[in-house]
């Protein structure tokens, strides 16, 4: 999958909606936010890449553009050989090949865990009832939430719900999985179980593009880390680069801040 020269801005009203709770953009006087300015990125089968950077820098919007959940203002998105940004492309078909995991989980609230995973298999892939059920149960087993199969989202913990979210994204065996800060809306003690699930997926060789600040996890699984700030990719490189000596000042500063924070949190635990 590839993004070529993506540009995306959004207005202040959308900004408020999209980044609820994000003080910088909510109060910010800027009426138009540039989430992506000429961003290009390529990810091959089996790659695991991690995007990180300050909140409000546009990385989530960029990720949503990759999934065509937001339409880029300019630039091209390729899924395999297929360009998704030319008019007339069946975006639903394309999205079916892209797994997406949301920061705020967004499970279908009226369906059980099983129903959440089954729905697309039935409606999009037109699988038989038994086949859809079997695939859904496989996916739920893979993320280890078999005890939640018949629970509704409101009856699950955040960690369980997010793992169901991951099951929903992987059940159809997508070409790539995009994960938008999958742990940042969770209580700190619940992030571990979601990280474990992601680690399992990494081990299986799944193709993943993850927006995350889970640094130990990043160091462990990511082939490449992408430092994203103010709508552009500032620096890319292997984790060793960022953990030792990033080339840019901005990345250096950010890494220092985030590593201090992580260490503090670990000491508290």
């Amino acid at each position, binding site marked *: 999958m590839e993004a070529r020269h993506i540009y995306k801005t959004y207005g202040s009203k959308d900004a408020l*909606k999209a980044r609820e709770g994000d003080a910088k953009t909510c109060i910010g006087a800027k009426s138009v936010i540039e989430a992506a300015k000429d961003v290009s990125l390529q990810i091959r089968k089996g790659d695991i890449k991690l995007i990180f950077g300050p909140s409000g820098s546009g990385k989530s919007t960029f990720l949503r553009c990759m*999934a065509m*959940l937001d339409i880029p203002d300019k630039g091209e998105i390729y899924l395999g050989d297929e360009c998704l940004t030319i008019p007339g492309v069946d975006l*639903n*078909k394309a*999205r*079916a*090949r*892209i797994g*997406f995991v*949301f920061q*705020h989980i*967004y*499970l*279908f*609230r*009226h369906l059980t865990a099983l129903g959440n995973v089954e*729905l*697309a298999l039935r*409606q*999009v892939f037109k699988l038989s009832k038994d086949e859809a059920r079997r695939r859904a149960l496989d996916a739920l087993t893979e993320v280890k939430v078999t005890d939640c199969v018949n629970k*509704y*989202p*409101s*009856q699950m913990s955040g960690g369980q719900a997010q793992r169901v979210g991951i099951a*929903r*994204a992987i059940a*159809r065996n997508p070409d790539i999985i995009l994960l938008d800060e999958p742990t940042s809306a969770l209580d700190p003690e619940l992030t571990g179980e979601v990280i474990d699930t992601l680690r399992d997926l990494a081990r299986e060789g799944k193709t993943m593009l993850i927006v995350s600040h889970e640094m130990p996890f990043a160091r462990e699984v990511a082939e490449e880390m992408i430092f994203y700030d103010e709508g552009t990719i500032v620096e890319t490189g292997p984790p060793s680069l960022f953990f030792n000596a990033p080339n840019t000042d901005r990345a250096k500063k950010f890494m220092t801040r985030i590593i201090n924070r992580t260490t503090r949190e670990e000491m508290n635990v």
Partner: protein
Amino acid sequence: MFEFLFNPMYQTWIVQGLILTVEITLFGVLLGLVLGTVLAIGDIYGSKPVKAAISVYAEFFRGSPLFVQLFLAVYTVPAILNVRVDHAVLAFLVFGLNSAGYQKGYMKGAMETIFDEQMQAGLSVGMSKIQTLRHVILPQAYRIVIPSWTNEFCSLTKSTATLSFVGFMDLVGAGRSILINNMQILPVWIVVGVIYFVWITAFSKVMDIVYEKKKIPGVELIMQ
């Protein structure tokens, strides 16, 4: 005092009146539900002119008395257009259109609380907007809207009283006809009132049971 209840002719009137009242209410609420849903989707999704048209529609049907709407539909509009349409058909339509004006509001409110994130989720798994509406948004919205829908049913049932003013023999129409014969104002209206009360209470109870049966934890109207 209530001996008129044993008069077979009066009995027939009352039963027929009740049937008309029930029929027109159920039809009105159902047509209102379907049309109200379509209007709600248009109001959330539609372009500016569509939204404006829907707003005019809803304000007209909510803002003017049902009696006036009924009178216009049954007498004025056919006369202007110079067509002959069965009065009953027109009356049924007016109740449906009127109810749609209210139910649009209920459905819109219910859908807006679930719309954005659930639509995103639906699209993200490869479903189309229409599939997401059908399998995700509407099943949640209908569950949320059941209590408002029950209210709408109660209110519409009582509104059918206006039917007798444009010549229909609904429950109130039956009462008026009996009154003309026996002049027992209080007993007749007590009987009519009790019939309304029993029917509305029974139906509301059924809807309460449906609501409880269909209820899913986490899918309810969030008051903000």
